[in-house]
């Protein structure tokens, strides 16, 4: 359901002597429903860049990125917005929220955006926060002051609030303790079981081995590294 064909990415830094950095070239692969694929490769190989391109966060220079019927490389902003609302979820490593908004609302927001009622969204948010061991006394506070691990769990709760048919996970278990890591891996397994397409970056090798069906080494697509 996610398919990349001959995808290319370069960055042109106009204000730094117009340096051109080729990140990836000629990337082609496909991921089916219910499948979880890990992007691997050394730091700087372009894993995160590729993931951000699939999300539409970075512009794609050439090639196609198909998610269902939409080609992200060509889509209008409003098509990508619609896709992100109901089809494509993304758990980034960093939490970016409006200051002052309570954690419960932060987690419920993606569900509200799909048209769920305030109550239904809040119920789902409470269930996820409980499952991810965020103490109830923190729910009414803004997550901006939380610890790194707590912020990451809020981010994960937000990412899993809606049952997206496709998900992108950037280091979902990076700063978690064993118990919470287990919860996140279970969430990923449940998403796979309901047929979600998942592409992830996992530096946690045991986690990768457990949830991923195969690996794609991004350094094969990095110009200058692949011989």
């Amino acid at each position, binding site marked *: 359901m996610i398919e990349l064909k001959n995808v290319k990415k370069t960055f042109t830094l106009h204000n730094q002597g117009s340096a051109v950095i080729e990140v990836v070239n000629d990337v082609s692969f496909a991921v089916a429903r219910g499948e979880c694929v890990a992007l691997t490769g050394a730091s700087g190989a372009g894993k995160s860049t590729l993931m951000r391109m699939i999300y539409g966060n970075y512009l794609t220079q050439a090639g196609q990125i198909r998610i269902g019927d939409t080609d992200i490389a060509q889509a209008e902003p409003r098509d990508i917005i619609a896709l992100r609302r109901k089809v494509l979820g993304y758990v980034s490593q960093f939490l970016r929220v*409006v200051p002052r908004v309570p954690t419960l609302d932060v987690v419920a927001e993606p569900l509200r955006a799909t048209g769920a009622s305030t109550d239904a969204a809040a119920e789902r948010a409470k269930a996820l926060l409980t499952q991810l061991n965020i103490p109830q006394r923190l729910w009414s506070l803004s997550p901006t002051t939380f610890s790194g691990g707590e912020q990451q769990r809020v981010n994960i709760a937000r990412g899993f609030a809606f049952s997206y048919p496709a998900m992108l996970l950037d280091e979902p278990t990076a700063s978690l303790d064993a118990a919470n890591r287990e919860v996140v891996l279970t969430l990923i397994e449940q998403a796979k079981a309901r047929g979600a397409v998942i592409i992830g970056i996992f530096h946690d090798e045991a986690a990768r081995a457990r949830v991923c069906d195969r690996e794609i080494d991004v350094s094969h697509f990095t110009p200058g590294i692949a011989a």
Partner: protein
Amino acid sequence: MTPLLSVQGVTKHYGSYIGCADVSFDLYPGEVMGIVGESGSGKSTLLNCMAGHLAPDVGEVVFDTRMDGPRDTVTMSEPERRMLSRTDWAFVHQHARDGLRMGVSAGGNVGERLMAVGERHYGDIRDQAIDWLERVEIDATRVDDRPTTFSGGMQQRLQIARNLVTGPRLVFMDEPTGGLDVSVQARLLDLLRGLVRDMGLSAIIVTHDLAVVRLLADRLMVMKSGRVIEAGLTDQVLDDPQHAYSQLLVSSVLQV
């Protein structure tokens, strides 16, 4: 789907100077678009051309009206355009004083827009005004106080209440959080986000604050010297800017 607002080739000169030149885009229902650029880049000129405050020299501003479908607001009659600005459009000024009547009570400020669209029952108008004061987090006991007794942040929230009470479909905002301290900005952003989502509003926000557009806008246009030099999804333009000037703008933001 029909765009709510379709801007085609809008150009405005001030004598021999370019205000804005050849701007075109479509805005769809429920979308929030940000316009960024340095002072003098033409963003406020463009906003004023779209909102009917300035007449563009060339170009069309087609709005999908409730009664007659898409109409060019540049060529429609002045009374028709004024009716739009009282009903389907709202305009939030940077300085609340420009959008409020400072000599009239808070409730009167909100109620005036209702009366302009034909509401006459005093009790209903007052109830709606109080309801809106509460929605923008102004205590209902302040309904009879004049905005001169309000803080800057409260005045801005009152201006928003006054604008949204008639249920507009398109809101123009000129630096809505400019001049407010950061804690008040955050509160206002949260409020605006909730209103946009719950009322299904479309909005065009002019600002030079990139953090504001990242949190509020779905789409972004970057302007320089009166022209749109880059446009796209907000996070894409901010995280992967293509044009030299956009790259400079994004990299010039001080990290906190």
